[in-house]
């Protein structure tokens, strides 16, 4: 274990200030494997298009969506409906302990297709960069998905299957085999020629009734409405409701819904645009950091998110490691931030990599918007909205990689963009790493952490199993593991596999369930 990379719980997180306000550190969680979707068989080659590129729970946690590089969105839903859960929970309460949510595949659809921008001679990948759930309406789920250029609003709703019968005119006759099926002498083939051409495509409409047609006052008894029989079967149907296109010159990295349920933002490298969900043909530019001369460009926007409750507040992060908070009430073009969160680097530590590893790859508002969690290459940081100078907590995720930055730069790994997430209560934070490992930290000072591998045996590689601070057990476990598989070499990066990186993960909004993507597989864990 080098440089305190996570050997003992205390060394893993360096705590500054008092963000807790007297709250107690949370006890450690025991993470267990729950489910896996799209598991890879040994030796099976992963198709590029199957690699998961976005994960998002909806507000209730009942649904989970993933997006992949092939432009598909896959939806999962909780298997146990509310009523069943209540009963089952009672039944299981004695024996198995608390139940955790389980999910099943519900549907998938092709959200984006590969495109080609002919004006700029650029290919536009279909890869889904972000998914965000919108307010549910009428039981239909709405979600925004985006690739590099185009955002789409999808509606996924159950459609009852129906069977239409008892038509006025026999469809089999109308389809053209009239001579054989025709049961009525009136229905000669002549009468149906218009229908024949209907099926052919080019349509001369049947002659409409002349305006002089005299309807008898009581109606025409021989006409009747078709009979529709609704079957009990339903099918989930995804329909694209809106396409928000042509507003981004650079690659879109984030979309985020406003608490007003009416607007959302989309951010690319240099600009943030504000949209109305109902209006797809115009958006307003609210942040523009593009310098007049592109050679003066020193930073780009890496991520942007709306405040969970304040409709006028949004935050965006930059490649220089700063987070800016913006008040949209102040002006139409928010070039001036109202708050800037930035940690001044300690003198003398600057190196070639300082700026690269400072780049923030993801931000999330935490605990009702009081905190912001940010992820840069080496750390997770938790910021108090009211304290701009330094984060209230820093969690070292990749400290052991510090000696290897040169290699990481060579193979471009240093530019990997890891996401971060928080538990619903904001007490814990999690983020991904290499070798398909993700790490969970307690948000409060003195809380411990867990390192888990995205596999069916998440604790296999884990050096310290979750335990109480200062517990001898941790050391024991470490010693025991050390026999077979030296944790030292591992943490030094010797065994670290930089090609299998766990970039995307999401925390269930209510329960301790984490969904994370290892390449093309979706792993779920609970505690």
């Amino acid at each position, binding site marked *: 274990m080098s440089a305190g990379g996570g050997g003992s719980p205390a060394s893993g997180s360096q705590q500054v200030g008092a963000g807790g306000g007297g709250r107690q550190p949370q006890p450690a969680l025991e993470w267990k494997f729950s489910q896996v979707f799209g598991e890879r068989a040994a030796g099976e080659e992963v198709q590029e298009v199957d690699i998961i590129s976005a994960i998002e729970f909806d507000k209730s946690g009942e649904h989970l969506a993933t997006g992949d590089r092939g432009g598909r969105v896959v939806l999962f839903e909780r298997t146990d409906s509310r009523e069943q859960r209540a009963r089952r929970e009672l039944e299981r309460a004695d024996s198995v302990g608390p139940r955790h949510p389980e999910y099943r595949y519900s549907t998938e659809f092709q959200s984006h297709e590969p495109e080609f921008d002919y004006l700029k001679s650029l290919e536009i990948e279909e890869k889904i960069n972000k998914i965000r759930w919108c307010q549910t*309406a009428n*039981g239909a789920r709405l979600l925004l998905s985006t690739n590099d250029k185009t955002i789409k609003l999808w509606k996924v709703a159950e459609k009852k299957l129906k069977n239409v019968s008892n038509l006025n005119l026999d469809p089999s006759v109308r389809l053209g085999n009239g001579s054989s099926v025709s049961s009525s002498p009136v229905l000669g083939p002549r009468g149906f020629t218009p*229908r024949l051409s209907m099926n052919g495509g080019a349509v001369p409409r049947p002659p*409409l009734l002349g305006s002089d047609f005299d309807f008898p006052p009581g109606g025409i008894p021989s006409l*009747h409405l078709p009979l529709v029989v609704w079957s009990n079967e339903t099918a989930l149907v995804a329909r694209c409701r809106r396409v928000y296109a042509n507003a981004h010159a650079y690659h879109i990295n984030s979309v985020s819904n406003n608490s007003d349920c*009416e607007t959302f933002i989309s951010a690319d490298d240099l600009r943030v645009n504000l949209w109305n969900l109902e209006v797809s043909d115009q958006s307003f530019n609210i942040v523009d950091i593009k310098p007049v001369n592109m050679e003066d460009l020193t930073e780009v926007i890496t991520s942007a998110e709306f405040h969970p409750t304040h409709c006028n507040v949004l935050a965006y992060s930059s490649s220089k490691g700063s987070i800016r908070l913006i008040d949209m009430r102040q002006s139409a073009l928010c070039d001036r931030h109202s708050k800037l969160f930035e940690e001044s680097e300690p003198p003398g530590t600057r190196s070639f990599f300082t700026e690269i590893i400072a780049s923030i790859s993801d931000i999330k508002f935490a605990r009702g918007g009081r905190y912001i969690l940010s992820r840069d290459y080496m750390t997770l940081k938790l910021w108090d909205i009211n304290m701009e100078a330094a984060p209230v907590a820093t969690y070292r995720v990749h400290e052991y990689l510090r000696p290897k930055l040169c290699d990481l730069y060579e193979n471009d790994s240093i530019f990997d963009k890891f996401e971060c997430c928080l538990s619903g209560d904001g007490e814990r934070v999690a983020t991904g790493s290499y070798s398909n490992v993700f790490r969970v930290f307690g948000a409060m000072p003195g809380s411990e952490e867990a390192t888990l591998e995205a596999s069916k045996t998440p604790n296999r590689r884990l050096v310290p199993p979750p335990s109480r601070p200062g517990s001898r057990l941790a050391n024991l476990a470490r010693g025991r593991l050390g026999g077979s598989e030296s944790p030292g070499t591992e943490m030094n990066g010797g065994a670290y596999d930089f090609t299998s990186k766990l970039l995307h993960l999401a925390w269930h909004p209510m329960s301790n369930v984490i969904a994370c993507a290892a390449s093309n597989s979706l792993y779920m864990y609970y505690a």
Partner: protein
Amino acid sequence: MAMVEEPLYPIAILIDELKNDDIQLRLNSIRRLPTIARALGEERTRKELIPFLSENNDDDDEVLLAMADELGGFIPYVGGVEHAHVLLPPLETLCTVEETVVREKAVESLCSIGAQMKERDVVDWFIPLVKRLGAGEWFTARVSACGLFHIAYPSAPELLRAELRSVYNQLCHDDMPMVRRSAASNLGKFAATVEPLYLKSDIMTFFRDLTQDDQDSVRLLAVEGCATLGKLLEPADCVAQVLPVIVGFSQDKSWRVRYMVANQLYELCEAVGPEPTRTELVPAYGRLLRDNEAEVRIAAAGKVTKFCSIVSPQVASQYILPCVKELSTDSSQHVRAALASVIMGMAPVLGKEATIDQLLPIFLALLKDEFPDVRLNIISKLDQVNQVIGIDLLSQSLLPAIVELAEDRHWRVRLAIIEYIPLLASQLGVDFFDDKLGALCMQWLGDQVYSIREAAANNLKRLAEEFGPEWALQHIVPQVLEMITNPHYLYRMTVLVAISLLAPVVGSEATCQTMLPVVINAAKDRVPNIKFNVAKMLQSMIPIVDSTVVEQTIRPCLVELHEDPDVDVRFFAGQALQACDQVMCA
């Protein structure tokens, strides 16, 4: 299989296609619901068609929208107003769908039906529907409910009215911002139907709560309601209850709210009356004109004339003019452009003296603005100032401004100024025009951009109409005809276009004498495009010239063109010859 007689096939198909798999066919059938209803008769429409539609709302939004629209006018087909209530159930379900436009259409249709229903039926059917929607599980139903209260309320007995008000109160405090937005935007309509007593108590409470909403989007809509509510209240109540809210809004933290106030303020002035306007709203307006957000200043600047027209000239020159002066040098070009587009309208309001003293320097400053839109906006409204102080004071500054715009490197700017040349000509008079602007008009004919050349030709025609054929023959036609020798065929083409536009204005004789020879000559051009345009032009000249000219000059020329090696030239020459023949026959 049913027996359907042949004449009924179209209707039978229409009915069957209500459930076709092809959305276009379903849409077509829904659009012809009245026909289907008439074919089924009133009773079966009530008992079969309407329930059928109620059950089959699992359709695409386009179809649902059409259905919501059709049902709004369906009362005649179900047997008149006494049966109108049968239409409510399908519309009720349409009020709950996710798509906003469908819900809005359904609400609109419900309102139109509800307005025709008998009072008792409203109580029995319509009000329960409003209450159901208002208590709907999904926000979509509650959003729709807000738009129905103004129909339900007048027919409700006392007790129900209290209930409706309390439902509305709940909607104003709904968890979902969409519902509160809907409550805010419909408050004015609802308020108009509420008794004065409750207007002052209940409605004003709703209003105050909405104005203090956390969501900017709700407060924005509450602003819009200010003017409507203000007009409903007694002036004294308005001053006591609405005015403080407006003044508060004008200093809201959110620029979007202030923007709304800036857009609405003059209407609010009408509601509160002159005295409170002077003491409260004029200062508020002054603040908005000096707002630190450019968007707000743009909105405020755009209303400056309207605002000045409702306050006294004295107030306007004392309080508003200083702000206007500042705006004319605003850092935002859009603010200056907004100001320039309305400031000329202040001249009639302020009168001659104040205009010369105070406005004229601003006009002149704006005429020298670096941003072309500002200058264009001033020029476009020149006639308003001309009526008050005459053009002379401005003309010295106008000319450089016009010339600069005429030579602007953006062709859209050049195009815009060309559009205003006839207006300028009429305001400045023929002498000034000949001296200064005539050359410009010719210059545009040789512009590099086609749109400019086209506009220039059109401009010549409008000038000819303005100053008369005599003037045109003297000042325009010779110069235009000279340009036919231009080495580039596109410019020669412009000349032809100009001739075809001028010919009807200058009259038959002048056309034959001066312009026709040039056209005939152009038929010998080496470029086919010119030649077939000559053919087209000759065809257009046939009706306006004498028949002898047609026979002696035009026809021989066309016959020659008809032999041309180029196929297009032959085609158009042929068409023109046919036109000749027709005229001769007639």
